[in-house]
């Protein structure tokens, strides 16, 4: 067991973890930040995507100890004083979610896609870069629309 400390959604957090404890387990089980989900065990589905030091990471594929000293943002940390992040708002406006299970990972990935590709990112790039986030409900049509709308709002 060892102690890890990190800033999570702007607040300092620490806890005792085993060497094998995954970041997602630390977030869900110890910090009770259950907005980050686990949908597979092979790092394929992307339901667990969070940002570590500003970059999207599958938190099922990172050990908690690897995030020691880092800045972690989860879906719970996006809204600002009750106001949705432009990407969250775009998912709502464009019906980019149904059951909501893949949604936190989708939104976190979408923000990272815009951060890296700019607000005029094209559809092919959005689709290619969402390849690591699986959704069974929406058929992706409205998710892609939402990412574009969110990109515009983030840029503007």
């Amino acid at each position: 067991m060892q102690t890890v400390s990190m800033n999570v959604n702007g607040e300092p957090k620490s806890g005792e973890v085993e060497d094998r404890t995954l970041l997602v387990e630390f977030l869900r089980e110890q910090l009770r930040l259950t907005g980050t989900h686990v949908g597979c065990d092979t790092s394929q589905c992307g339901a667990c995507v969070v940002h570590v030091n500003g970059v999207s990471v599958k938190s099922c594929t990172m050990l908690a100890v690897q995030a020691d000293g880092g800045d972690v943002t989860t879906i719970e940390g996006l809204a600002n004083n009750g106001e949705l992040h432009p990407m969250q708002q775009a998912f709502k406006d464009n019906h980019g979610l149904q059951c909501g299970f893949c949604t936190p990972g989708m939104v976190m990935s979408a923000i990272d896609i815009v951060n890296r590709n700019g607000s005029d990112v094209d559809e092919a790039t959005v689709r290619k870069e969402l390849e690591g986030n699986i959704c069974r409900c929406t058929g992706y049509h409205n998710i892609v629309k939402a990412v574009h709308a969110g990109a515009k709002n983030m840029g503007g």
Partner: protein
Amino acid sequence: MAENGVGASVRRKEDHRFLTGKGSYTDDLNVVGQTHAYFVRSPHAHATINNINTSAALAADGVVAVLTGDDLAADGIGPLICGVSVTSDDGEPHRAPVHSALAQGKVNYVGDHVAVVIAETLTEAKDAAEKVEVDYGILPAVTDTATAADDGQEQIHEVAPNNQCFNWPFGDKAAVDAAFESAHKVSSLDLVNNRMVTNPMEPRAAVGEYNSGTEEITLHLTTQNPHVHRLVMSAFNQLAPEHKLRVVGPDVGGGFGVKIFVYSEELVVGWACRKVNRPVKWTSDRTEAFLADAHGRDHVAHAEMAMDENGTFVAMRVNTTANLGAYLSTFATMVPSYLYAFLLAGQYSTPLIYSEVKAVFTNTAPVDAARGAGRPEATFLLERLVDVCAEDMGLDPAEIRRRNFIPVDAFPYQTPVVQCYDSGDYNAALDKALALADYEGFAGRAEEAKSRGKYRGIGISSYVEACGIAPSAAVGQLGAGVGLWESAQVRFNPTGNVQVFTGTHSHGQGHETTFAQLVTEQLGVPIENIEVIHGDTSKTQFGMGTYGSRSLAVGGVAIAKACEKLIEKGKKIAAHALEAAVGDIEFSDGNFTVAGTDKTMNIAEVAFNAYVPHSYPEGLEPGFDENAFFDPMNFSFPAGTHICEVEVDPDTGVVEIVKYSAVDDFGKLINPMIVEGQVHGGIVHGVGQALLEGCQYDSDGQLITASYMDYAMPRADNVPSFDVDYAPTNPPHNPLGVKGCGEAGAIGAPPAVINAISNALGIKHIDMPATPENVWRAAQTATS
């Protein structure tokens, strides 16, 4: 139309919690003192269990209990059941092997449940599970659908000779055979409907708590139908009396059918929490989901159509073998029988149909309903066969459909396979879809593609499905053990806001918004003052849950009926308060008014009055809260035409969907935004089946597609955006004029895609999934 009422694309009420990480899914729940369950599963497809030694596991760190099938039997927990009866051709009911939640003496598929370890932490439970020693006597496995019932095959269950569950003929065989003998032309096709793993993104989970003071079990489950779970577990599994069992389906991350059924893990968690007198939590990992969730589809069929010289269908004959897996899941028998053969008429006026379905047991996971359930299998077979008929007759695929469509003036239309279709205008949907797809311009696009070395193809699929499941009388006659009505309670609080309790369950469909739209439309209460509550047997009245595109078509009507009762009650209260006769009170836009006067009360004032009845006369009952049940007179029959256009790269076999157009008849749309989202999702589910998803067992019964590394789910870069439109008709028996939309895409898409690929390659048929390898092989012999 009321603001935010029927027909408005209201943004969803449920989205805020999902977008901010505040959804509450079963695995998010943690209970003080909880233990963790992990299942010991069979690594063999077929084996006797000679001995289970649990002593090393029991001695491991943190272990609370290790329980086996013997413990389950000793406590009188009954086996899992299948709720629908099918009579076999020998006059006997279908063969139903005993399905214990934990194996007793034998395992029958890889992933079958051998024992459960309960420990303080999940890692301790997993570590201890490794220490459970099981002595297996390995037997040969049966995995192939087509040959499972052949002579000489290993027998899986004593009660099912030749591994046959039932052989179910339907239709006038002699008349059909005679029509074939005198037909101008017979077209035929052999086809496979590939096995799928349903894969909602949230894996199944259960949290059980036992209160020894009240002797009540509370079970949080990933369920589409909490009351059905409670009923089955109580009445058939003897887990607890119904009033001592509370089942909660909180936020559920997708269902698509696979969360209808009562599973071993759920029953074991409910039982174990009482046995160890500690809360017990179990969450499936994705590998377990592949192994032990009920799978879908898995048919092998031979289909024939007899035609006259005009290409008119005169008779159809279908022979199907359906794989039900190792045991019967909760509704397994119904899927390849009533939900399949009764849809074989499709949109056509084929007068004679004969179907024979042989259902077989194999050493694979149980197979049950998955998005569409039987209807995708029927539609794939029929719509592929129709394209073969067109080719054989030298007719355009659109033209042969048109020649055989049930005409618009023939509704209600009695098919030769039981169903009586409510309403439809199949030409209207086809015409609209052809225009949307620019069908006329296809030849030019194909020519242009050829110049780039690509094969372009276009495929039509005209489907019909039976939704709004279901009229209780109809399903009762067919052998279902339940009625399929739905219930609602609409309760005004004294301050005028409204709680709507529904027996359906929302797991992505947006009921909290759509149902609130119904209520705001009818009662005039602002939508923000309406809360829809579902999924908890201790909060809502008994209801049957969500599947078969039934929630709006059946559950929505129950809500509307409860609202009607409130209006009637409100008139009495308003009449008393306004000192008028009940017959003089009119209700509109949320206001009760004395006709011809300006004396009025809004519905919130009436509600307050109803809870402060200081001067009520005898006979006027206080309170403003009404219940209603609705049992439909018929199924609803959504229908439509989907057109898919593909480009095939003959060098790589990669298929790109370049355009996809869908025109559907769902009746009236309550929230068009939500409906369109359901269409998109359904289409991609169907595209997944057509191009990507194939569940594969090897001959030893090992599941070789047990992760997202090996089982190809459709991803964002596999699919395009879609063109969606509607050609609605009005179903006369549905008071809301609605039909249901959740499964349509998964039904319409597979044949549209495969028809397009067959067209591109100039081949008769290619089986699903049309992976690059399969397409490349087909392209090598193609004539295009």
